[in-house]
């Protein structure tokens, strides 16, 4: 393949660096809050994650202290329940996910030869949402008002009647806030991996780590929305009394469990996949040969990504669903053994055929293998229904889960941190302290949790704050507790080692482990723009095939080594072939993400304190901030007013019809669709299964009004499509008027839907039927408003000259939302207005 824009001229590397640094460099002082750079934000994610890990770890030690002896009253049951709930919540939501996302945010652009993620401001928004949400959630511990219903928040224990204080609200609001962060990172990782790989890097040539992260990000996109929906519904039930999960009002507490585990099971694989990605990255490097069976691994990742969505009921085997249904989930759970085994044996074969070295990171990989295989095997056992019925909710499951999560996530994570430390800091970790840390952690971990299997088999249930002397569990609990202190000593040593190395570590030589992937072509520590020039990469092992590549990249001998235009630029490439399609120009540092996240934090706090007026005001303020941020796109003076590129270069993405923003909207709509499908699931679930569901005699929703609203939104979408077709054919006459017409039709849809809602005279606090219906219509109204606002803004942007034939990019993004609205509204009419008439109560 002939590479685009191969520079033949000699550059002065220092001059190039200075030029690029002027554009990409991070500001200091207060302005550091505006940074959108992925390297900086990735590190912030990881450091914040480590802080939360320490908090979660202290909570774990409190639990083990309490359980060390029988009949202890070190903690009251109320405090104990808060501590265990927060331990699970903090580790899952505030450590595991953000930590791995942080690592991915840091590494992915470097590995695929890009200069940043594709939506840098979104990275920043995600970080602040995570930080603020995490602070709000953990602050509940300080005021002793933490959630206490378990990290899974089963209703009715978490509902108003049985948890009247603010604990559940802290959880529901804080977690939803944090999930904005997870989702936004998920969306941009997908788009970045698919659309911004460097020139020539075809899909089947990209590093395996990118495949793993792609799968993880897509799983986040599909897997998190069900929990967001569940949290919204439960918070509505708690705040205003809509009985979604109350039997008496026609709701069902089991619906919560479905929504929770629809998220909760994929979550385990969301955590495991990036960790396995670390293992698949390290093993070839330390074996000194390419991984065998690249295609096998890709297949295994894909299988895991899908199958993990078909397992959620195995957390609910004891709730009393038909045994055949349980058998489906049981068998599906066993199927996961196949992709896991494929990966394990790919790793073994790679070691077998290579010349592996037991360096410090590999020691952690070995610890991972032993612990994770053990956890996987008990996982297969748990998939078997009769055995599950016995050990479900006992310490056996606690042990299994820690084997899978600590073995499957923490050990590879530490392996990865040690491996990439030289990249973070330019220094090497110490072998000695590191080995001590590993062995203490490994032995302490097994001492704590191997025994715990046995405690569970002897019948000790989970989540009991004490047990009586003579139960036969005393000695095992004591051993677990002692070992847990060894474990924490080990972890403390590792963290100390990592902290000390920043000061005392030996300076690392370039590419210290002789790795094959592009991130090692960075300077150590990396510059803000990653690479002076972007290479043409057509191999899976660019640094092995061309060891000189880092130097030629730094000398600017490859593409896009230009800074004179003042734009942050990188390649936009074809998702399959890696051929260059356009130049992506990225926005610079911005205050808007911080402002928007702060406004959302105020929303969160005012919902918590039940000041709904303030919450409403700040929702609008946050919306204005976000729209203001989106204003600085495309041909805006702060973005890329001048579309000039060098002769022979592809156009800027904002001057094409298919930029990354379109892809981001697409991926966001997948997440949104997952939310909507979860909603439909809830509607049909309650309708068919809920014991006291009441279908009104006459369907309340007017078919005529809803149908008319549907016609309006369809007409609006048709107009949008027509305008897009015009732009494609270089016509933008009447573009602004077209947008305003579509917006008017959208407004008509909103009006008609609102009228239908008003006419329906729902009493959402009385029956779950009315409550669910109200939520569906509110969803439609919200999306209608969103489409109208964005379309009106497009009309305005036409007036300002930011949108038109010269910059035809944005209308396509908005039109995609219109298409989505048409589909969703059609489904809503079908589910809420037509089917009840056809089937009846």
């Amino acid at each position, binding site marked *: 393949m002939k590479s685009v824009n191969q520079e033949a001229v000699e550059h002065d590397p220092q001059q190039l660096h200075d030029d690029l640094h002027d554009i990409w460099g991070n500001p200091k002082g207060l302005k550091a809050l505006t940074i959108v750079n992925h390297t900086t934000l990735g590190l912030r994610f990881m450091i914040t994650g480590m802080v939360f890990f320490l908090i979660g770890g202290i909570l774990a030690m409190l639990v083990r202290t309490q359980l060390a002896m029988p009949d202890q009253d070190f903690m009251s049951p109320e405090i104990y329940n808060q501590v265990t709930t927060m331990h699970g919540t903090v580790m899952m939501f505030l450590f595991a996910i953000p930590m791995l996302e942080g690592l991915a945010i840091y590494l992915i652009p470097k590995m695929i030869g890009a200069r940043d993620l594709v939506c840098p401001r979104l990275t920043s928004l995600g970080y602040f949402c995570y930080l603020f949400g995490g602070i709000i959630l953990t602050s509940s511990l300080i005021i002793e008002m933490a959630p206490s219903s378990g990290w899974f928040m089963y209703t009715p224990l978490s509902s108003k009647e049985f948890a009247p204080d603010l604990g559940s609200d802290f959880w529901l609001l804080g977690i939803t806030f944090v999930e904005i962060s997870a989702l936004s990172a998920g969306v941009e990782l997908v788009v970045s991996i698919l659309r911004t790989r460097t020139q020539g890097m075809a899909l*089947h040539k990209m590093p395996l780590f990118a495949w793993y992260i792609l799968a993880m990000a897509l799983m986040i996109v599909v897997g998190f929305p069900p929990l967001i929906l569940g949290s919204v519904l439960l918070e509505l039930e708690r705040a205003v009394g809509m009985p979604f999960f109350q039997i008496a009002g026609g709701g069902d507490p089991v619906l919560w469990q479905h929504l929770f585990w629809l998220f909760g099971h994929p979550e385990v694989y969301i955590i495991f996949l990036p960790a396995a990605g670390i293992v698949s990255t390290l093993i070839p490097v330390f074996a000194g040969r390419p991984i065998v069976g690249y295609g096998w691994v890709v297949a295994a990742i894909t299988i895991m990504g*899908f199958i993990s*969505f078909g397992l959620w009921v195995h957390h609910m085997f004891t709730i009393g669903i038909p*045994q*055949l*249904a349980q058998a*489906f989930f049981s068998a599906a759970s066993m*199927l996961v053994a196949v992709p896991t085994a494929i990966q394990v044996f790919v790793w073994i074969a790679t070691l077998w055929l290579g010349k592996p070295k037991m360096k410090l990171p590999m020691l952690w990989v070995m610890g991972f293998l032993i612990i994770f295989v053990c956890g996987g095997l008990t996982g297969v056992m748990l998939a078997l229904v009769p055995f599950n019925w016995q050990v479900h909710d006992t310490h056996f499951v606690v042990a299994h889960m820690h084997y899978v999560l600590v073995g499957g996530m923490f050990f590879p994570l530490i392996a990865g941190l040690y491996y990439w430390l030289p990249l973070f800091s330019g220094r090497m970790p110490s072998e000695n302290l590191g080995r001590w840390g590993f062995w203490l952690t490994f032995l302490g971990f097994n001492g704590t949790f191997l025994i715990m299997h046995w405690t569970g088999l002897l019948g000790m249930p989970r989540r009991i704050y004490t047990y009586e002397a003579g139960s036969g569990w005393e000695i095992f609990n004591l051993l677990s507790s002692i070992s847990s202190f060894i474990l924490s000593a080990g972890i403390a040593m590792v963290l100390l080692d990592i902290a000390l190395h920043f000061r005392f570590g030996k300076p690392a030589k370039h590419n210290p482990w002789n790795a094959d992937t592009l991130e090692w072509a960075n300077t150590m520590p990396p510059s803000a723009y990653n690479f002076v020039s972007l290479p043409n990469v057509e191999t899976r092992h660019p640094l092995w095939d061309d060891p000189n590549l880092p130097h030629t990249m730094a000398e600017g001998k490859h593409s896009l080594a230009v800074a004179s235009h003042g734009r942050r630029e990188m390649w936009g490439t074809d998702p*399959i072939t890696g051929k260059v399609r356009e130049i992506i120009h990225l926005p610079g540092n911005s205050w808007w993400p911080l402002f928007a996240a702060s406004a959302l934090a105020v929303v969160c706090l005012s919902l918590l304190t039940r000041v709904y007026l303030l919450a409403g005001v700040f929702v609008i303020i946050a919306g204005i901030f976000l729209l203001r941020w989106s204003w600085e796109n495309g041909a805006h003076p702060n973005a890329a007013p001048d579309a000039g590129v060098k002769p022979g270069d592809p156009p800027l993405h904002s001057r094409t019809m298919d930029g990354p923003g379109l892809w981001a909207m697409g991926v966001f709509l997948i997440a949104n669709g997952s939310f909507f499908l979860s909603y439909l699931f809830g509607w049909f679930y309650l309708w*068919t299964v809920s014991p006291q569901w009441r279908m009104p005699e006459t369907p309340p929703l007017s078919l005529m009004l809803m149908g008319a609203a549907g016609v309006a939104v369809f007409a609006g979408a048709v107009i949008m499509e027509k305008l897009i077709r015009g732009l494609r054919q270089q016509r933008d006459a009447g573009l602004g008027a077209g947008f305003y017409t579509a917006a008017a039709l959208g407004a008509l849809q909103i009006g008609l839907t609102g009228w239908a809602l008003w006419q329906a005279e729902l009493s959402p606090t009385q029956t779950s039927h009315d409550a669910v219906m109200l939520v569906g219509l509110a969803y439609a109204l919200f999306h209608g408003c969103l489409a109208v606002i964005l379309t009106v803004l497009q009309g305005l942007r036409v007036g300002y000259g930011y949108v038109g034939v010269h910059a035809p990019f944005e209308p396509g993004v908005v039109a995609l939302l219109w298409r989505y609205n048409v589909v969703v509204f059609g489904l809503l009419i079908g589910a809420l207005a037509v089917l009840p008439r056809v089937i009846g109560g």
Partner: protein
Amino acid sequence: MERLNFTHPIHLTVGLTLWSLWFVGVYSGLSVACAVAPPAPEAGAVTLLNAGLGMISLIFTAGLLLLAWGSFQVAKQHRGRQHFHAVVSGWLYLFSAFGVAFAGLPIIAVPPCL
């Protein structure tokens, strides 16, 4: 219509999407049938419901096997990128077929609504 060709990476996801559809289909079909018209417990596993679910599973298995065969055929005609996508898709179709057959096994032996 490049996407219809087995060399397009979209096929990496089609097999397992079909598996998911089958899975959701039999699970929700079973749940609705048990809520609306459960067969008598005395009948054991020999019910119309089991037969229906079994038929659906067989159809899906056969379809997925066919797709796997198709992918492998196409893979033989290509090298490089196209070969890679077709081969991996083929294995994924094969796994999906196995997944349907395996997770559908209990239909033979387990009474549906107990």
